[in-house]
């Protein structure tokens, strides 16, 4: 075997490379860190998170990115994110009330609810943002492009 083939076929988490931002952190650790960061950002007591995610829209964006991170991290993190997404989805689109909602429609509704209203409390935009991050991956197509771009960045980071 030619050693170069082995090197090329090796997974990117095997060794340090230029495409890795944080080295051997891994997606699971990144998801755990993102979970903690999201809770701190929702509480809004930290000066640092208040500097960057004081705005509710930025908080929703952070929650969406962390939703994508949970989804691509897999395992329990994915279960948590999927549960949040399903909770929001089943609340908003009860089949007894709204019938025939496509996954893209759910993504549209969740993204609208996360980013458009002038939220006063901090939990709803984080909740809908987390669900929106998952729903982008469920919907595919244009939402999937968004999901893939964010996921590729996170995978490069981890």
């Amino acid at each position, binding site marked *: 075997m030619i050693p170069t083939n082995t090197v090329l076929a090796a997974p990117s988490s095997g060794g340090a490379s230029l495409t890795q931002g944080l080295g051997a952190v891994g997606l699971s650790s990144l998801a755990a860190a993102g979970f903690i960061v999201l809770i701190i950002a929702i509480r809004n007591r930290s000066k640092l998170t208040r500097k960057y995610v004081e705005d509710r829209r930025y908080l929703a964006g952070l929650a969406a990115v962390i939703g994508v991170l949970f*989804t*691509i991290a897999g395992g329990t993190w994915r279960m948590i994110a999927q549960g949040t997404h399903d909770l929001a989805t089943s609340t908003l689109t009860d089949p007894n009330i709204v019938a025939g909602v*496509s*996954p*893209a*429609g759910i*993504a*549209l509704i969740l993204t*609208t609810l996360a980013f*458009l*209203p*002038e939220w006063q409390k901090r939990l709803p935009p984080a909740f809908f943002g987390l669900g929106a991050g*998952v729903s982008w*991956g*469920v*919907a*595919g*197509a*244009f*939402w*999937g*492009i968004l*999901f*893939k*771009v964010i*996921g*590729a960045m996170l*995978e490069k980071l981890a």
Partner: protein
Amino acid sequence: MAEPNREDPRTSCPGPGGQPGPRTQARPAAGPLTCHDADHNEKFIQMLIHLALQGERITGASEEGGTMTSADEQSDPFHTPLPDEAPPPPAAAEAAGRDGGQAPAPAPADAPVDGVDAQVNTMEEGTQTPRGSGAERVAPPMPASPPGTPENAPEWWRGSRDEPKSAPAAGSPRESKPGWWDRLYKDQDADLDTYTGHVLTVPADGEPVLIEARKDSEPEVPEPDEAAAEEPAARGPALGVHRPQPTLRIRTPTVKRWRPTRFWRVITFNGTAAAAGSAIGLNAYLSQFPPAAVTAAGGLLGAGMALAGGVTAWKAAGSDKLAPFVPFGALGRLGAVFLSAEVGRQLGQAFLPHTSDTVARYVGLSQTDTSLLVVGLTMCGASGWLVWRTRYGGLLKRWLARVPLATSLLVCALYSSGPVI
């Protein structure tokens, strides 16, 4: 805030109260320059004097040494009155002021007019009294109240005459209503924090006073007269305490109309536009494009680049520098356009696989995603350019331009091709 000057009878003009009848004072002989011709119209003269007063107040003619009318001299503190003017003795004026105008006022009803006449007559006769010499100073320099106005004077006349005579009377400062500047600058313990200048005055009985901070931005409605008349009588000795005005004044924001939030405005505008696009069938037409993105993207990119090349060639061949080198005139320009468009089409079709390869390698999007992105960007870009062109138009124009963009965005958002996770 400005009404207490009018409801207090002690500070009202002494003149109009006591002179219900016609004028009894003999008028001087009218010179050629008097207002004798217009004398029948009393209001006209009053208006003239009022305008003169206003002009003096605006331009400050007395301070600049300009021409002085007699109306100026009425309010000039350094003016020694002419003997013809015959000012009332101060005691009589004070008594008239105390009695609320019941005593016959010494000032005639049309004193300003007579003053004008006298001034003109004096100037004609040449017996000019030297001004500024304090020898014949027989009256206080500035009378406490200007000469009275007729009883049937209109409201604007009373208001304008009441305003400048805000000099403090002889009594205590509480006896006379001071001007608003007195509250600001004369009270040593004025409340300068809130800039209202109010001294919180509480009646001597010690009864608690409720100070309420009004939150309405509307000016205060003046109270009915009977309440204003009964209140000082009930207070008894503390006559000067009229009504405790709020010390703390909360500056309220302006009156807010009800306006939907940004969320509902955006939703309504774009939602109705998308609904209109769906109603006219634009939705069904545009929704054909995203599923056919893989086959359509190459041709779309080629068409876009052909269009861009054609436009570029048309402009370049028509420019001043390159036009002499284009053969066959307009026909050669047209040929250059077609040539450039064909080159652009070929380049665009060859451009997509290369682009999608690069994107797939570095960004992580598949070729299908790149094609979809090209199609979506073309749809939304073309309709967004329309929105951008009409961004300064009216509401209807912007809404009509928004219809294709909202429809395209809705089509792109509602297209799903299976989960990617």
